[in-house]
């Protein structure tokens, strides 16, 4: 775009890290250090203040396209951001995971929408939901039934979405819906960008067993969505979704390693040493660094614009194992305190343990990932 240039750190990752680290140590960010809020909606609102400060100082603009409020660079800038936020004792929460999955596909497949809407998202002013799963379409995503019927220059959307992370507080939904026939399976899908305040949209939060409202259920009743809200072409929805899932499976995994290494360190200070502790904490650490060692290749490939394909399923499976390894260690090593404690620091382990159970379910269940590897990496015969 004429007159808009990429930032000084777009091609200099080491300098970005150094400058970011200095910035994140500033007292301006002390408000958010060590924060953990039980109420998810409140946490999102509170942390969005931090996202804004970092964005306004330009550090939060890397990894976003020039022309979409960004300063260029790529997903490696995000990986650095995740590590440095955690190192500075700052929260890495819903905003970051949603941006990780949604920012790249909209930039690539709908640059005009990205130019108009992405800056507010990247700045923390709002966040978006990812409307993929449905009551009858979980692992079998291509069987989804939420319909978009073309009516002049609008799609009329009717149907339901489920398990939308942070959907109840999101301003928009990136919605995968059927614009072709049911028989067309994945070929008849399109991706639309909805405003959640459009007439006919209704969203209710869903509480995880931890008591945290991480998810939502979305209802669409003849919602009129202009055709210029297509992300990609009509019928290109599956391709956009698969592009998106690379980031969800790989870059998000890197993000979690940053958080989980910090949590592992916290756990180690809270439990007595002994053979069991050594074995479990050592296993969790091996899982985490093994995931990073794998993920670094994937992140670099995505940064270079390569398609990762079925191999990203390995990243996803390693993430599930690592996440559960950390929280199973917590459950085991914290002993009775895991079950009986009024201390919020200890209760947080239980809440996060519940979240860790979902890691092998969301974004394509572990069984689906294993199937992808069996089919497309090992080339095993199909049943």
């Amino acid at each position: 775009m004429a007159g808009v240039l990429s930032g000084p750190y777009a091609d200099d990752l080491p300098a970005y890290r150094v400058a970011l680290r200095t910035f994140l140590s500033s007292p301006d960010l002390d408000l958010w250090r060590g924060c953990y809020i039980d109420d998810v909606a409140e946490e999102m609102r509170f942390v969005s203040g931090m996202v804004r400060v970092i964005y306004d100082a330009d550090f939060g603009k890397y990894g976003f396209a020039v022309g979409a409020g960004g300063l260029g660079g790529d997903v490696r800038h995000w990986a650095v951001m995740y590590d440095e936020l955690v190192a500075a004792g700052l929260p890495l929460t819903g905003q970051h995971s949603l941006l990780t999955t949604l920012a790249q596909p909209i930039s690539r497949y709908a640059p005009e929408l990205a130019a108009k809407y992405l800056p507010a998202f990247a700045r923390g002013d709002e966040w978006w939901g990812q409307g993929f799963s449905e009551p009858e379409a979980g692992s079998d995503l291509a069987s989804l039934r939420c319909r978009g019927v073309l009516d002049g220059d609008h799609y009329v959307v009717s149907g339901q979405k489920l398990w939308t992370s942070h959907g109840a507080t999101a301003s928009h939904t990136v919605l995968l819906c059927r614009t072709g026939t049911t028989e067309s399976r994945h070929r008849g899908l399109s991706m639309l960008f909805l405003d959640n305040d459009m007439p006919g949209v209704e969203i209710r939060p869903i509480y995880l067993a931890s008591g945290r409202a991480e998810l939502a259920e979305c209802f669409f009743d003849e919602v009129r969505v202009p055709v210029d809200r297509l992300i990609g072409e009509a019928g290109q929805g599956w391709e956009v979704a698969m592009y998106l899932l690379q980031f969800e499976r790989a870059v998000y995994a890197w993000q979690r390693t940053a958080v989980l290494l910090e949590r592992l360190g916290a756990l180690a200070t809270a439990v007595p040493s002994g053979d069991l502790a050594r074995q479990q904490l050592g296993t969790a650490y091996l899982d985490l660094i093994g995931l990073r060692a794998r993920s670094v290749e994937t992140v670099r490939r995505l940064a270079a614009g390569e398609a990762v394909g079925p191999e990203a399923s390995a990243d996803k499976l390693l993430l599930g194992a690592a996440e559960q390894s950390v929280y199973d260690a917590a459950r085991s090593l914290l002993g009775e305190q895991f079950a009986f404690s009024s201390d919020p620091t200890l209760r947080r382990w239980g809440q996060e343990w519940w979240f860790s159970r979902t890691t092998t379910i969301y974004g394509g269940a572990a069984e689906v990932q294993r199937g992808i590897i069996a089919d497309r990496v090992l080339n095993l015969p199909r049943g």
Partner: protein
Amino acid sequence: MDAEQVTLLSASLDEMFVDAVGDVSAVLAELGWDEVVAEDPVVATRLLFTAHARARARTTILDRLVLDALGGDVPALASAVLWPVAKPESMVCGILTHLPGDDDIVVAPLTDAHETSLAVIRGADLVTAPLKTFDPTLEWFEATVAAPADLVATTSWDSAVDAARRALAAELIALSHEVLRLAVAHTGTRTQFGAPIAAFQAVRHRLADSRVAITAAEGLLDVAFDDGGPLAARLAKAQAGRAHQLVSGHAVQVCGAIGATLEHPLHTFIDRGVVLDSLLGRWDALVSELGDLVLTTTTAMPRLVEV
């Protein structure tokens, strides 16, 4: 080094290692291996130990690698390492992967709480006995030192261990690949209930998990070679040994009874891995050491891998 060179070198090594026993330095020299090492030492090490695993060769390349890593700390003529089995106390004892001649020089590490020194021993001063190992093809020996040994100081033992752990990880990964390859081949052709058993989800998921465990080990070995340090080498060998155990368990199960017999080659790659895992720290012992690190780290956990 480009892909074509790698393929050619791999093929030459495969050929060289067929039935190879003992010292292969001369054959490697003939192959121009020094130049390969000079061009890309990491690729050279990985190719060498990968081919060694595929052939289940019984050569002295691991001893050679350690002696080279010890460099000037040991006599140039040293030809064998006495591998530590448990923490040696006052007596020097360990495992020999080949039997030295009376005049050959053997190097043994002696580690106390603070440092490692090296005992330099003549072959004639060792009392040796054949050692039965989990892999019956290996003709290894246990040895104790009969006479007082010369002790030399060393600053390179720790880095020699790191190098050996990376090499062992490469070999374990290659063994795991072979185990998985055999399991994929067997389950793709073995038909039950009217379908190849690899079409059954219970089988597919075991094989997919095997592949993922190897993938993590490969990533950690890349990191270990990039990083060069002890923590990364320990992680790489731990995951390589762990993956080998996991892949072996799944492979034996899905291959059915034939996979647990001498008539099928599966056991050869499993047996060898069990033995290699036991050198320089079994995977679960290394995991326990990692656990110690986690428990005693007072600052942020080492992230080790940066994008």
